[in-house]
């Protein structure tokens, strides 16, 4: 029984991970990890600021992330 719930939890975790990666919800976590790994002393952007810049980047080059017909 315990083994089953463990497996289910693992599966749910994997699904959650996949979903967050796919929707870009984990982009901020990735950025944080990247920023901390490269320069532990730096003060990373807040989530609000990060998401703002991420969306606004599409303004500068609309070809990024363009979808097909």
């Amino acid at each position, binding site marked *: 029984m315990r083994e089953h719930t463990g497996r289910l939890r693992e599966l749910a975790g994997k699904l959650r991970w996949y979903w967050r990666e796919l929707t870009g919800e984990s982009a901020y976590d990735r950025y944080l990890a*990247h920023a901390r790994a490269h320069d532990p002393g730096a003060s990373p952007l807040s989530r609000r600021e990060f998401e703002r810049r991420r969306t606004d980047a599409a303004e500068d*080059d609309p*070809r990024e992330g363009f979808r097909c017909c």
Partner: protein
Amino acid sequence: MWTLVAIAGAVGWAMLALARGEEVSATWMVVAALGTYAIGYRFYSRFLAHRVLKVDKNRATPAERLNNGVDFHPTDRRVLFGHHFAAVAGAGPLVGPVLAAQMGYLPGTIWIVVGVIFAGAVQDMVTLFFSTRRDGRSLGQMARDEVGPVGGAAALIAVFAIMIILLAVLAMVIVNALAESPWGVFSIAMTIPIALFMGFYLRVLRPGRVTEVSVIGVMLLLLAIVSGGWVAESSWAETFTLSPGALVVWMVIYGFVASVLPVWMLLAPRDYLSTFMKVGTIALLAIGVIVAMPSLKMPAVTEFASRGDGPVFAGSLFPFVFITIACGALSGFHSLVASGTTPKMIQKETQVRMVGYGAMLTESFVAIMAMVAACIIDPGLFFAINAPAGAIGDTVQSASEAVANFGFTISPQDLTAAAEAVEEDSLLSRTGGAPTFALGMSEIFSAVIGGAGMKAFWYHFAIMFEALFILTTVDAGTRVGRFMLQDMLGNVYKPFREVSWKPGVWIASAVVVGGWGYFLWAGVHDPLGGINQLFPLFGIANQLLAAVALAVCTTLLVKSGRLKWAWVTAVPLAWDVAVTLTASWQKIFSGDTAVGFFAQRQVYADAIDAGKVIAPAKDMDDMHTVVLNSTVNGVLAAFFALLVIVILVDAGRVCYRAIRYPEQVVLHEAKFEQSRIVAPAGFFPTAEEKAELAEASRSDRGHPATGAR
């Protein structure tokens, strides 16, 4: 195991091809397609990866070398597959197969499956590979670097022209589906406030919480569909009943406003909504087809295939089936995605097979389902929906008679009943593919959930789902067109290049919207039927872009010393060029007035001189419209053909030089760097890859980010 798959596929094809006079289950079409894809993926794409491209698992990708945690970052292959698929699959594979169904289900299906394996998926995979080797450079940049300035300029112009035609055709699909339909118009109009709310939520209330806001958004969307039904029966119905002409004006206004608003307000939230709806609906449809097992009512091959006088689009099977079905078999547009975002995120070079080839096979399967949806509805109804008003008149009686002349039967009562079942006033001449697809989908879904009572809901659900992502494409495409135009105008007057210079943005947006708006307006008012006239041009344009991509790929294969294998892209290129040039030739020079634009122009111009009005034109204004439209379309077809020839000649010149003087070849490939990431190539790791992963995690415990999950 592979023998079994091959046998299953072969049985599927046999059932499809040999059925005479009886209905075949759509399941066979699905089995035939999936079996063939599996074989193609297992053997041909493996050959491409290992023998032709020689993908190198030791070579670091741009994502690994240039990792900045934002746009360059190594992404898990399964996630990237999802991203790439969502980016390449749109409305295209849902429209083309529906129109091509007028020639029967067989020609289109064969082309979709064979085309994707030997042409479409090859193009996507090879472009992705070469772009990955060049730090994710775009197709236009690769054409300039590797072919030359002439080829590069031709490629840029081609992309821009295609964008305009694409947007016009997609917008026309929506106009035809929403005209005189208060339910549809209300539901679609509601998506704008919903998207604005989502945009506000993501910007101000809870930044980055995509899942929550999408759940709320999808709920509101379903509510919008249901309430559309109430509105259609209320006193508001009048307000939301719009003529095609009025819808064109609204589309143009929407296109302009949406493209100058900040991305976060409308585009970003809409993009989330339409992507979820798209992937969700496609998954539902696949399940629906398998559970409901509908049978195909359309004949395998209709007489229009050989006679070439079909009402949906004119011309014979070769080349027009191959023009009509672009997305799903071979779509030039994909080369823009395969040389854009995806190469900057791919983790390992070895994964181009799964991402490039695999995602394209999946899109092809979407096209197969569109074909199923079109072929399970009654052929009589199919032709009544897809033939232009000029051919079938505007009453159910005249439509029923016209359909009888096509060689199919449907009674006026049945036509009325079909429209009533989905709570629309009329389904006649709802050209463009979306309504046909929606009808087929409502047939399949209502067989699984809700029965006949849910048909109207499912129909409008399908219309909404297509309209949603077409409107998103209109917005995003206008932005891309504007960006390219600003770049070109920047050569003349510098400030145009500044994205923040508002007048430049407005002017360029207005020009792009004006461009597609013109074709949309002309198409909607064309007495001969806009889709009938414009869709072939769109197909030619898309295949032209494929010719550019394949020419660049072939040049690169030759320049990188793979001459022996250059046929893998050269053969599809030759086929594509044959199709595109034959189609353009016929569109320009054919004496058949249904096919040749100039022959058509001549007949109508002569009649104007003689003071006569020829049906389907109703008056002299209509006559002048026909003359103007056929002139513009004819010139455009000639222009596209010219571009193909320019690019081919230029690529040929570069290839010749590379073969003749191999020592002078300059490749713009990024330098080799050892890859430290260990990750499997396919969906499931092989035994060998599992061992490598275990080894990597033992020796590298401190860096969990470098191993795959």
